[in-house]
């Protein structure tokens, strides 16, 4: 292998690879990136066996071939070099020389055969949508994805296609977030579970174009420009979420999102591991947020609301409400409530999405 490449182009493709690479892996090759030169491209690939990323950049290829190099060191080197161009030459099977300006490196690597074969994803189902739209949707639900490993079917989000729309849902058993928007050419399916890591990596991408989503038998792929992210679908059944979206919450209160978020943040400074709940006391046109912690003390804050109903109160984990409020992009937010035992349903007032809501289960305090 012998190639010349533009350093800036190369770096742009190299950076996202790093997110995929396992930091604490026991399989050494998984901390590597595979580089492969053929015809006019240098191809890159990284994987943790569940989620993989491939990409390429244009190159002047004088000799084909490949090597797997240690991801973090390699990225540091390329980033630190000066000059517009980098030359990569395979010295022997396991040694790569890097030349740029007056610097020369010779780094050890692994043979490309040692790198895992990446899955090829079929096209049983295929849809296309603007990437910026998808990225926003992911940002609106990802906080609700469970991090508890024993509940593996909740360690991802449900992507469900409907006729002319896509719905993304995440839940950790305490709260649930759902967002839905129109897309062209989709037909009803029963949904697939996309692992959290794949969602996180997608969120890091910057691109104005369309992303193509394909579903194979066991894998999914997201292609965006030169990049293709593939992942194994999570197995398991996702909860019947429409059922938990209560329809009979008769108390509706509107708030200025920023005011509510800030009040909750301040009051929650006095919550801790042993007393994590805040109390929301609703009365006509007023909300009182409070927290009491045996270790720390108490906090109270009042703010105005558009609310007409009876006086009542409900306990809640402030993080759950906070995550939702910071994912929102509207000026106002509405909370639908019923009583202290019933779920709170939050949604934007005059939002851009066809449907966006977050269900939060209350706490007893």
């Amino acid at each position, binding site marked *: 292998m012998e190639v010349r490449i533009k350093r800036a182009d190369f770096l742009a493709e190299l950076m996202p690879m790093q997110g995929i690479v396992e930091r604490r892996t026991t399989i050494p090759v998984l901390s590597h990136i595979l580089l492969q030169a053929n015809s006019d491209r240098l191809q890159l690939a990284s994987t943790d066996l569940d989620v993989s990323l491939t990409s390429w950049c244009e190159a002047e290829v004088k000799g084909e071939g490949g090597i797997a190099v240690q991801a973090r060191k390699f990225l540091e080197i390329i980033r630190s070099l000066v000059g517009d161009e980098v030359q990569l030459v395979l010295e022997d099977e396991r040694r790569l020389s890097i030349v740029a300006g007056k610097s020369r490196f010779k780094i050890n690597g692994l043979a490309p055969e040692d790198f895992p074969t990446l899955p090829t994803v079929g096209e049983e189902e295929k849809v296309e949508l603007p990437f910026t739209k998808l990225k926003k949707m992911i940002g609106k639900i990802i906080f609700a994805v469970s991090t*508890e490993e024993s509940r593996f079917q909740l360690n991802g989000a449900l992507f469900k296609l409907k006729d002319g729309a896509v719905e993304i849902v995440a839940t950790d*058993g305490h709260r649930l977030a759902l967002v839905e928007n129109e897309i062209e050419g989709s037909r009803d399916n029963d949904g697939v579970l996309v692992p959290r890591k794949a969602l996180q990596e997608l969120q890091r991408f910057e691109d104005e174009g369309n992303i193509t989503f394909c579903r194979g038998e066991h894998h999914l792929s997201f292609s965006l420009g030169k990049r293709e992210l593939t992942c194994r679908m999570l197995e398991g059944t996702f909860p019947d979420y429409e059922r*938990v979206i209560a329809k009979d919450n008769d108390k509706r209160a509107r708030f200025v999102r920023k005011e509510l978020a800030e009040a909750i943040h301040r009051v929650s400074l006095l919550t801790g*591991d042993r007393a*994590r*709940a805040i109390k929301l006391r609703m009365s006509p046109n007023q909300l009182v947020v409070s927290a009491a912690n045996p270790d720390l003390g108490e906090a109270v804050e009042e703010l105005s609301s558009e609310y007409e109903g009876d006086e009542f109160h409900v306990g809640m*984990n402030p993080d759950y409400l906070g995550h939702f409020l910071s994912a929102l992009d509207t000026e106002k937010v509405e909370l639908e409530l019923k009583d202290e035992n019933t779920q709170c349903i939050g949604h934007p007032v005059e939002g851009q999405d066809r449907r966006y809501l977050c269900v939060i*289960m*209350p*706490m007893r305090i």
Partner: protein
Amino acid sequence: MASIRKLPEELIGKIAAGEVVERPASVVKELLENALDAGAREIEIELVAGGAERIRIRDDGSGMSAGDAALVFDRHATSKISNFEDLLEVETLGFRGEALSSIGAVAHVEIQTSDDAGAGVVVRAAGGLVEPPEPRPRSRGTTVEVASLFFNVPARRKFLKTAPAELRRVVEVVQGYALARPDVRFSLRSERGTVLDALPAGNGLDGLKRRVAQLFGEELAAHLAEVDRSPRPGTSIWGFVGDPTTTRGRRYFVFVNRRLLRDRAMMSSFYRAVRETWHGSEFPALFLFLDLPAAEVDVNVHPQKAEVRFREPRVSSDLFLAIRRGLEISLGEVDAPLTAAADLAGAPLSWQGEGGRTKASLSGSVSAETGDGNLAAELHEEALPFSSSRLAEISYTPPQRTPVPLSGRSGAVRSLRVLGQYKGTVILLEGSDGLYLIDQHVAHERILYERFRADLDHDVPESQRLLEPVLLEISAAEALRLAEMAADLEGSGFEVTSMSGGTVALAAVPAALRPSQAEKLLLELAHGGGDGGGETGHLRERLLDALAASLACRAAVKMHEPLSADQMEAMVAELFASDQPYACPHGRPIVLKMTDRDLESRFGQR
């Protein structure tokens, strides 16, 4: 002093009854055994008020002739043995001929029965008075109805628990026999409806597995590994042992010749096999059958026949080997490290684990001797001749820079010196008699646990509602146990409602627990921790213990977290001032010690 006199017959009956009949569950046990001995294929049990008001058991077994029926209430009347030789080869469940006479002494009993030939007869007894038989037509089989148990022994009646508590004990008994005989149909009803109905499931391993699924749910049945071994002709050990996901239930059932036992020696073979195979102290579900020639076992040891003696001394090692094989299969692989450990060159240093010992004793009661902090004395248990050990001969006092006062509760101050931290994870201490290693995470966990636990006594734990109730499949007995605990569960943040059959729905959990922890804790409680299994009295304590342990685990310093010397000293000092410095709330060891002897033998100085 009163003079000696002969006791009236009625009193003798009551005293004898006390040995056999303790509560409704023991009545059900005796009647079930009789039905099975009579070859029943279908047994129906009905209870009112947990059996205290009425127990009715109907079977389709051989029944009795009018002549035999007239004798059933006589003490030591039995059709099952007739001479001493028979006693040595008992193949039936009953043989003492005491049950019906005992029950007849303390309740109103009515038996309707008919054998193949007979036209049917009914006999009655109440408080030891037997009425003559009367004809009553009936199809083949027997129905025994026991009403007003202990009506004439108020002291006993007073000791009966609430109806759900008694019912739960009956369910446990019925489960035992239902496992022993998967080929027989068992149904149990109370005034509230069907508690359990297990259709005939067939014989052998397959039948047993289906029966386990009927009683405890498919989930458990899917996590069982086969045990199947015939060490000698005529003897076989078979059944199932669970994989590590089945440890929460305390479902241990051991049968000898289809007789459910709680034999200590047999259980200890099981415990030993688990410890040696899994190196853990949690035990999986066990459904184990030992079948061997009747002449080789003596079941006549205990009036309630819960223990046995074997004529063949190898039985316990046979059991051990059979169970161990099953455990290996249930782990999905045969345990290789066991043999590799013998390879000295590659083996890690082995040292005496303080916590290891503590952990073993934790399962009984928290041992007082490890609690009181006399580290040196505990460590030098049955010590090898120390005089020959050169390192130990050097009387060494650690440099005085930072003696950490390890007072413990005993108050005896000894000084250990902090040497440093290994990989941001283990604190190393030097003592006059060896090298101490402290796991910083579990040490901190123990310290916080004691602090949080004390606070929880006067806090009300927060409760988080769940988006969708978690449905748990448990046995009927477990569901009843949870019903008994409802108030305490609610007080600690659980909201549990029972659904049809053995399913319960978990709608809210203590906020301090992760969902899976909450589920696990609830299942443990449902099955009743403690080997006695019975009491729910310390429930609130146990719940709060679990909450404190979970909070402590989360708040404690993690691994790979560098600590300053001052921080380490403070932590070690606080650790040894705690109630139980040697094991974390989950039973993991905190302190390991390498003695001088260990070091010497490793360095080849001996």
